[in-house]
């Protein structure tokens, strides 16, 4: 079976797009609906709805206002000092110039209408968090940001294990940069390569879940086709991947959570991505969301994170310097 997967991964991209002309009917050479390609979920729309929007669907004018806010923020971040001026000691430096980042350029549209949040349920666009559970789990998160006795204590992104936030998913959510995915299909499998940190989620089709004691990074995913829609169910999430925090979203996924994703190719340049998270330990209700995965130009640049991770040594050296004070 492994040999079949390997051959499929090599051959499938070459055979992609050679069949029917209508995207709804386009199949791979082995007959599955074709989702293959490089895709991005970069967008100014976040998981949760900002307080300044009341509705899921927003007008063109409101969408333009969001873009203006984004541009003004970029301008502010890029030019906090006059030419020749130095940064001030103790400033909130924000980290980086906007040129280092790639969050997206617009609110995404579905059915031709701008969306203010990825969340479609609950209808208020806010996660139905169980704050007491979040409080109980907070200590682990706190340690990741404050303790640096050895590398294993730092966050998963710093350790080059998985990307920050829920970039790899499930659910796959947009972050500040590297919002790119490559989907490759072979008979019996769908592979989603997540650009950051080069994570490959292999979805087994028409398969049972592995035993519950097997909890891989990105969870254990199995899939099935419902017409042209790939339905993926994931459970047995890695216990160290509970907190997925980035600037764009903060979510908590407990080990027993069940996540269902639906991938439907709607045209040459778009996949409709929908998900539902059922995690009654961390949330008072289900939550659902949807967003487009839009075709991305070019290929994914290899994210060989460990090789260039000077940051980890610098973080540990920084902690030792703090101790000497």
């Amino acid at each position: 079976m492994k040999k079949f997967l390997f051959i499929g991964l090599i051959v499938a991209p070459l055979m992609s797009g050679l069949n029917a002309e209508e995207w709804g009917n386009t199949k791979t050479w082995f007959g599955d609906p074709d989702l293959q390609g490089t895709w991005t979920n970069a967008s100014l729309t976040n998981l949760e709805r900002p307080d300044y929007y009341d509705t899921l669907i927003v007008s063109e004018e409101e969408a333009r206002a969001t873009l203006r806010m984004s541009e003004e923020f970029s301008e502010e971040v890029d030019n906090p000092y006059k030419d020749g001026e130095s940064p001030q000691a103790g400033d909130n430096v924000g980290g980086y110039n906007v040129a280092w980042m790639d969050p997206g350029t617009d609110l995404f549209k579905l059915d031709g209408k701008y969306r203010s949040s990825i969340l479609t349920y609950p209808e208020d666009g806010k996660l139905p968090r169980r704050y007491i559970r979040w409080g109980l789990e907070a200590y682990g998160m706190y340690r990741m940001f404050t303790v640096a006795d050895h590398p294993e204590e730092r966050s998963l992104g710093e350790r080059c294990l998985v990307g920050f936030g829920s970039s790899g998913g499930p659910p796959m959510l947009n972050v500040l940069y590297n919002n790119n995915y490559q989907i490759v299909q072979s008979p019996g499998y769908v592979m989603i390569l997540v650009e950051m940190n080069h994570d490959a989620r292999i979805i087994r089709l028409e398969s049972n879940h592995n035993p519950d004691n097997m909890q891989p990074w990105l969870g254990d995913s199995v899939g099935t086709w419902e017409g042209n829609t790939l339905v993926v169910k994931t459970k047995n999430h890695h216990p160290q991947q509970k907190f997925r925090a980035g600037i764009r979203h903060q979510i908590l996924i407990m080990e027993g959570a069940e996540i269902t994703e639906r991938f439907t190719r709607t045209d040459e340049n778009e996949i409709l991505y929908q998900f539902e998270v059922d995690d009654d330990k961390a949330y008072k209700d289900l939550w659902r969301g949807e967003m487009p995965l839009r075709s991305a130009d070019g290929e994914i640049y290899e994210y060989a994170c460990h090789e260039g991770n000077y940051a980890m040594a610098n973080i540990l050296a920084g902690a030792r310097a703090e101790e000497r004070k």
Partner: protein
Amino acid sequence: MKNILKIIAINFTLLLGMSTYINAHHAFTAEFDPNAPINITGKVVKVEWINPHAWVHVEVKDMGKTTVWMVEGGTPNTLIRNGINKKTITPGTVIVVRGYQSKGKLCLPRCIANGRDITFPDGRKVFMGSSGTGAPRDGSDPRERR
């Protein structure tokens, strides 16, 4: 007990908000010292085009002493998509770096800093913004769709 847990939850939310504001691949304040700003001018001697961050090595001469700084930038994947590549900064180019020094401050073998922004001595930005970085949309970016 319930109140204590609520306080923990609120503290957690504050912590999260603070840390995520400055968090990219790694937490900025874990690696760099916001109380140690730098403003250096020097010649590029090496560019490392690697993940998760590109690094530009700059040789700075000051009062007869030469120091080489390693300056951390963005992920090369993002830079390439924004039209920035290895040829944007080449060895020999003189640049001005404003940023913050690493907390370690050992300068062994090289001093380390984040490159908050990088410009040429005449004020031109080395890394020009594209429409993907908040600059005005001009239709040239394929990501501007519908």
